């Protein structure tokens, strides 16, 4: 047993290390911001893609919490993103009278944090309210219910004149930036991975694996589903805040279920139940339309075919091919780790034997009963 003093010192050092990590990350992002924005390293076009990628990483990693780790298939993420985008924009539009250009960095940061909190809390509450009835359902029924709720949120917004109806909100203050987008993306990844290695996170995995067994071991399954759903929604809300304050105008049509499906494609592409996979999927899906831009338009029987317009079709084909060749996604549920990196050259992604996401190996004997 460690003495109380040693314990306290250990705790303080742990906190200190954590603080150093966070401060370091913030400093690096702050230093990168002007460097990247200046166009010296990447041109503005790719800079913008980097920003969109950060938002997509937040969306995919947060959706993976509910779809991948908790095993509850939800198609409502764009709806919660919309809640965050709209409430925070309404908040900044009405509360922020001073033109943003005249704000100091500290003031801007304060407003951004305020907007993020507004978006996260409202989207989290929306997730909680939607989650309670929907999460009683399973499988396809849950997917359909969440799809419905996502659309209800969008149609509700469409019919609220106060937030512009179909013409949306514009002149939103430009508070979002590379720094904030990637800070939230990295935070989402960190929180997600912290959760997974905790007792709460293992309870969440238990819900995915076998609800009856989880209950029998004292895991309140419904509670966990609702908590994870609300938390995941809150993160999606933050992504909405960042997107709104980047694009400066938002429309209900930006948050249709097609957007939700795009996020699901990211998660499935990378491999359900892997944070690394969600990041990879988000990166790929962000880059895909840009890649398609380079495919020249061609004509088939007089019709001009532009690959960009066929994005959703390409997603579908991509998913079908993936399901046929790598049903568990590109990473097959494995996670990236420093330790894995340091092992045999070339093997960047590693599945530890203790990896909680190993595919279940079917045992013939298991069928005896």
């Amino acid at each position, binding site marked *: 047993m460690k003495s109380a003093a040693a314990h306290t010192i*250990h*705790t303080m050092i*742990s*906190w200190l290390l*954590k603080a150093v990590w966070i401060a370091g990350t913030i400093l690096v992002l702050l230093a990168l911001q002007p460097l990247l924005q200046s166009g010296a390293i990447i041109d503005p076009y790719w800079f913008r893609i980097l920003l969109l990628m950060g938002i997509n990483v937040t969306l995919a990693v947060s959706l993976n919490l509910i779809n991948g780790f908790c095993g509850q298939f939800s198609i409502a993420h764009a709806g919660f993103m919309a809640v965050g985008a709209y409430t925070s924009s309404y908040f900044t539009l009405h509360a922020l009278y001073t033109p943003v250009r005249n704000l100091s960095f500290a003031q801007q940061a304060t407003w951004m944090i305020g907007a993020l909190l507004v978006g996260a809390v409202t989207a989290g509450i929306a997730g909680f309210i939607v989650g309670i009835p929907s999460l009683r359902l399973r499988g396809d029924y849950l997917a359909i219910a969440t799809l419905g709720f996502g659309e209800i949120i969008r149609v509700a917004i469409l019919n609220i004149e106060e937030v512009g109806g179909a013409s949306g909100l514009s002149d939103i203050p430009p508070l979002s930036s590379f720094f904030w987008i990637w800070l939230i993306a990295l935070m989402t990844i960190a*929180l997600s991975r*912290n*959760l997974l*290695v*905790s*007792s*709460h*996170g*293992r*309870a969440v*995995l*238990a819900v995915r*694996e*076998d609800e*009856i*067994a*989880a*209950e*029998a*071991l*004292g*895991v*309140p*399954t419904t509670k966990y589903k609702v*908590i994870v759903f609300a*938390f995941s929604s809150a993160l999606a809300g933050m992504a909405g805040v960042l997107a709104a304050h980047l694009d400066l105008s938002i429309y209900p049509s930006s948050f249709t279920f097609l957007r939700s499906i795009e996020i699901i494609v990211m998660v499935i592409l990378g491999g359900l139940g892997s944070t690394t996979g969600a990041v990879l999927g988000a990166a790929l899906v962000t880059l895909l339309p840009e890649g398609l831009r380079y495919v020249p338009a061609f004509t088939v029987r007089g019709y001009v075919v532009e690959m960009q317009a066929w994005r959703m079709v390409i997603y579908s084909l991509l998913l079908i091919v993936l399901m046929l060749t790598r049903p568990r996604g590109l990473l097959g549920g494995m996670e990236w780790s420093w330790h894995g990196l340091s092992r045999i050259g070339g093997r960047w992604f590693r599945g*530890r*034997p*203790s*990896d*909680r*996401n*190993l*595919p*279940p*190996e*079917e*045992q013939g*004997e*298991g069928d*005896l*009963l």
Partner: protein
Amino acid sequence: MSRRQGSGIRDPGSGVGDQEPGVRDRGNPGALLRLESCTRAFGGLVAMKDVDLEVHPGELVGLIGPNGAGKTTVFNVITGIYEPTAGKVLFDGKDISGRKPHQVARAGISRTFQNIRLFRALSVMDNVRIALHLRHRHSFPAALFRTPGVANEDRAQTEEAHRLLEALDLGHLSGEAAGSLPYGEQRRLEIARALATHPQLLLLDEPAAGMNDQETDRLMEIIREIRRVFGVTILLIEHDMGLVMGICERIYVLDYGEVIAAGLPEEIRADPKVIEAYLGVENDEL
């Protein structure tokens, strides 16, 4: 099998098994578990009818009966998976009928399943650590930020899970995916996992099903030892009467959802109703 013979249970050390059988009895003659004319119907089918059953602290009680007699249904009613259609389930004097399964687990009842229900894709270690969840103390936000307290608790959980796995001779498998274990080990892991909740009452649903004679013998050894080391009261379902006769102190016999006999193994063995129930189904069970 190359496994060493005899008792496989090592004392898991501090934290587990620090309570003697019957300690919870507090001089109260009441049963730890009491079913009062419990009935459970599925539509027209009455799977469990007016079942009265008592398990006293420290006992090892058997529940037997032919296939489809309603034994598993009894467990499902006790653990809250099904609500009794009529009657009451009392645990430690409190009415627990109608509670959710996780609340029943929290109250101190743990179980295994006839069709093994491990978290197959998770490691052996994680299977046990999930069962330690009941006694964890940190909030969800604390876990998100992985406060030092969470990290410490995590280490403690890993250590305790490891002790438990060692005690059940599964220590060397802690990194394996639970679903990849051989059948007998899966059954043992399920018992280890159930014990990790520190139950007062352990319900074992056909723990020997699908095992060969050697494995069954070893399992009986393990069950006896678990009771001694962990001080847990056990209610055990078994299809095979031989096993039950060997280790149970008292036996209930269920047929068509009703208790047709209850008593000491010798009494049960000689009971004409029991013989008939078993003869009616499978001749060689006795």
